[in-house]
């Protein structure tokens, strides 16, 4: 039931906002309330209120039962149903969505976006579809939400984005749609072949083409090299909070798809194509890192670093072992939070300076301790300094992929070094040395409202740094993810 609720609340709020002609403040208020309600519902889900006499106890993520599920007949003719629910990692990804969503909406309110009714409605719609993606237990339903999230994104980028927004959004949507339409062909072929679209009960397929269709969609969405043509424009042109959602959460739909659609149902092709995919993922990691190193603007750096991170996560997924999978989930949550924080910070900097060009920035640490602290902390988590949650994720992933060849791990390790290079470059370009030409002398430090948006993200990251096992140890039913995954399709 909770799963449905989590999907419906933002969608309903979006409808309310669209339909009722309310003033700006009320609209924003409703949006924020809905976003907070989502967070509340999710947090409520972490604790199961019924089990213990004290009233609070951890939900048992290790159980084989799907949590908070609902299943209704929908398109029986083809064996499609409205089936939603959570296994551990889905719940974490959902949590990521609601948190980043709330911050994004908060940021929008803080900035005071034009045309608030349209805007908040669309963001809520996006959040709802994202939750839908992560809660899906039916292949077609997954696809439905997977596509539905493009609808708001198209307009969010295209209307509220930067100067190149239209080109960016067209490229983004058509590119990703091209990928996901290939997936539609695969969805059809797979579901019809199985006689059901249920992710839990359908068996395995050994058809390479169907497999590749799915992989194409997720490779575009993630994105993996060389399917990332949309990335730069979309991430740099979108409004910062949309970029945050885009790189932080939307890309995780690919993670979900790879873990829950591809791995369990295509064991044969996964085995056959593992080498290729690992090479692609490793290439993504290195390529993204190298390009991040030479980007001229903040968001460009974050964009390509996101790409690199997605390559890393993909490495973990296709390692298909415990370390790789748990690490991938952990890293997905980490990366979602950190890239959201980074994009929001980028937005705040851009708002102060009117540009994101690194050459025109600098010296912002002086007199702005809050900004400096947050940028530094976030930046350090971006570059995965040991001890940070991102480090743990990376370590786990690379340790996992080591099983398939030391080369991948070595490339990954090289990636870490390059990450250090671009991360430091970014931090320094923003904060250090002399005051940049575009930095107004009197531009203020972060204000309370802005802190309220970024600090929670960073705080969660720090908590995860101190206790990554909270996510990585509770991602899959059973105590061996690889076996669990193998069991789904078998």
């Amino acid at each position, binding site marked *: 039931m909770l799963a449905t609720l989590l999907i419906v609340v933002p969608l309903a709020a979006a409808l309310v906002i*669209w339909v009722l002609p309310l003033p700006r403040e009320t609209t924003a208020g409703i949006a924020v309330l809905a976003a907070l309600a989502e967070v509340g519902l999710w947090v409520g889900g972490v604790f199961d209120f019924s089990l213990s006499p004290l009233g609070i106890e951890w939900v048992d993520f290790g159980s084989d039962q799907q949590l908070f599920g609902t299943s209704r*007949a*929908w*398109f*029986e*003719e*083809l064996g499609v149903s409205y089936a939603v629910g959570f296994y551990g990692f889905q719940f974490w990804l959902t949590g990521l969505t609601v948190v980043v969503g709330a911050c994004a909406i908060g940021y929008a309110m803080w900035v005071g976006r034009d*045309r608030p009714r*349209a805007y908040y409605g669309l963001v809520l719609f996006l959040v709802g579809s994202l939750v839908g993606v992560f809660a899906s237990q039916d292949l*077609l339903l997954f*696809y*439905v*939400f997977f*596509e*539905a999230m*493009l*609808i708001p994104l*198209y*307009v969010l980028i*295209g*209307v509220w984005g930067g100067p190149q*927004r*239209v080109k960016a*959004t*067209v490229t983004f*949507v*058509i590119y990703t*749609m*091209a990928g996901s*339409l*290939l997936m*539609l*062909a695969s*969805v*059809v*072929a797979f*579901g*019809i072949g199985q006689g059901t679209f249920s992710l839990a009960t359908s068996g395995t397929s050994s058809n390479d083409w169907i497999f590749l269709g799915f992989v194409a969609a997720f490779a575009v969405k993630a994105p993996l090299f060389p399917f990332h043509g949309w990335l730069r424009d979309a991430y740099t042109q979108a409004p910062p909070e949309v970029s945050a959602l885009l790189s932080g959460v939307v890309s995780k739909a690919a993670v979900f798809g790879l873990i829950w659609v591809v791995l369990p149902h295509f064991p044969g092709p996964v085995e056959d194509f593992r080498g290729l995919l690992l090479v692609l993922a490793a290439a993504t990691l290195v390529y993204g890192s190298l390009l991040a190193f030479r980007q001229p603007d903040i968001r460009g750096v974050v964009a390509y670093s996101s790409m690199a991170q997605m390559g890393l996560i993909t490495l973990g997924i296709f390692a298909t072992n415990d370390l790789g999978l748990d690490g991938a989930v952990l890293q997905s949550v980490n990366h979602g939070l950190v890239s959201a924080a980074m994009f929001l910070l980028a937005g705040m900097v851009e708002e102060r300076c009117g540009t994101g060009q690194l050459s025109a920035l600098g010296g912002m640490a002086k007199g702005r301790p809050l900004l400096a602290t947050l940028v530094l902390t976030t930046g350090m988590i971006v570059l995965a300094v040991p001890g940070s949650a991102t480090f743990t994720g990376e370590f786990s992933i690379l340790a996992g992929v080591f099983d398939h060849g030391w080369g991948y791990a070595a490339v990954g390790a090289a990636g870490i070094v390059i990450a250090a290079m671009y991360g430091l470059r970014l931090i320094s370009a923003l904060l250090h040395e002399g005051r940049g030409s575009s930095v107004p002398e009197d531009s203020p430090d972060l204000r309370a409202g802005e802190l309220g948006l970024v600090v929670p993200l960073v705080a969660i990251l720090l908590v995860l740094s101190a206790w990554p096992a909270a996510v990585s140890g509770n991602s899959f039913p059973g105590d061996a993810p690889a076996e669990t995954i193998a069991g789904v399709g078998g």
Partner: protein
Amino acid sequence: MTVVGASIPTPDVDWLALSPTVALLAASALCLLGAVIVPQESRRLFSATVAFTGFVAAVVLAVDVFRETPDGVSLIADSMSRDRLAALAQILLAGVGGLAVLVAWGDRRRSHVGEYYALLTAAGAGMVFFVGSANLMTLVLGLEWFSIALYILCALDTDRERSLEAGLKYLVVGSFGSAILLFGAAMTYGATGELGFSAIRDAEGADDPVFVIGLAMIVAGLAFKASAAPFHMWTPDVYEGAPTAVTAFMAAATKAAALVVTLRVLVTAFPEQSEVWTVAVAVLAVASLAIGNLAALVQRDVKRMLAYSSVSQAGFMLIAIAADSSSGGKALLYYLVPYAAASLGAFAIVAARERELERPVTVDAMAGFGWERPLHGAAMWVFMLAFAGFPLTGGFLGKFYVFAAAYEAGWWWLVVVGVLATAISLYYYLGIVRAMYMRPSQVVGSTLAVAGGSPPYDPALGAAVAASVAVVVGSFVFVQPLVDLAADAVAHLPF
């Protein structure tokens, strides 16, 4: 009929089966009458009301036919069939007609008001009859019936050159197509000696080349009406030139009628040749997808773009027919529902825009529309998404179902083509959204003011748009009930 001499046995007429047609004919007649006797100032109200009532009555009656007809029967020496396929198609067509009347209401024409609605209902009646045809003769006649009505409707704005051009082009090319269909019918008749669909199926001579050529010509003639490439060339010109309300009706209804009949003819009359025509239909589907989508990419006029889009949509629906299976049939019927609604709705929006700008609606003219008219803009958005096959609209499930049917039938490469075509189509469908929301309005303060400010809100058009949105979205949520209906409809087709 009783006046006929006793030597002639009076045929048993099933009035219920004919009732939707008759209701529309009656409405048409009333409108014509109204054109003469009702005073000028109330003529529009009268005619529109009558026409709308006629369409609603047709819907109600068709529903009744559907419920009363669990098994298909053929009537009057097999010249017509009363079955759920026809009934379902009639519900759809009459529904579209009713909405088209609502769209037409805001049309500020001064002359031929009564005739306008009379012809609209007459065309509706022709289609409603056409989908129930059971032999080649009723098929050809039904087709001519609504075609001729539509030729006139297209040219009805005799003060506009484009309307005349559209009318003449439609007439000439349409008659040319009819002639081919007719010649095909003659060939088929020649090869089998039969006109009835089921009789043709049972007749000998199936491998006769004459028969095959006849089949080819019949397919061509029907594809022409469905505006499938390469028989689509009239479509953009006519859609662009015709009065927009008429275009709305044509785009939604003609295609639906033509495709339903194509399905019926091919499946009931030519099952033996299925390996021949499935390939042909698949080829037509691919051609439609390719040509429709590519040409739509470079269109500036929205109606014209929608026309090409309708060509590509025909391609998708032909895929369902090519599947030659019961799920293909169901997929086609299901697909038609959101398609018809979205198509009608989209042209309705264009009509609204056209009326406030008083000039043809180009993509540029849509700039800023979404912000100026939020509800219309949102509706247009929904329709574009439906065309593009985005989820949360029936268009998505329609495509999905079509692909599923095709895949089941082994047409995997058709699925791939369909998928690629969809990817291309996104560019122009989303281009409309792009114009509506992402470009500054070029209208406010300039042309709009010249046109006398924005026209008063048109509740009829609004209702039509709202109904279309409801159908587009509703068909997504309630897919299974619709598919159940479609399953009933195709149950007796001999797959």
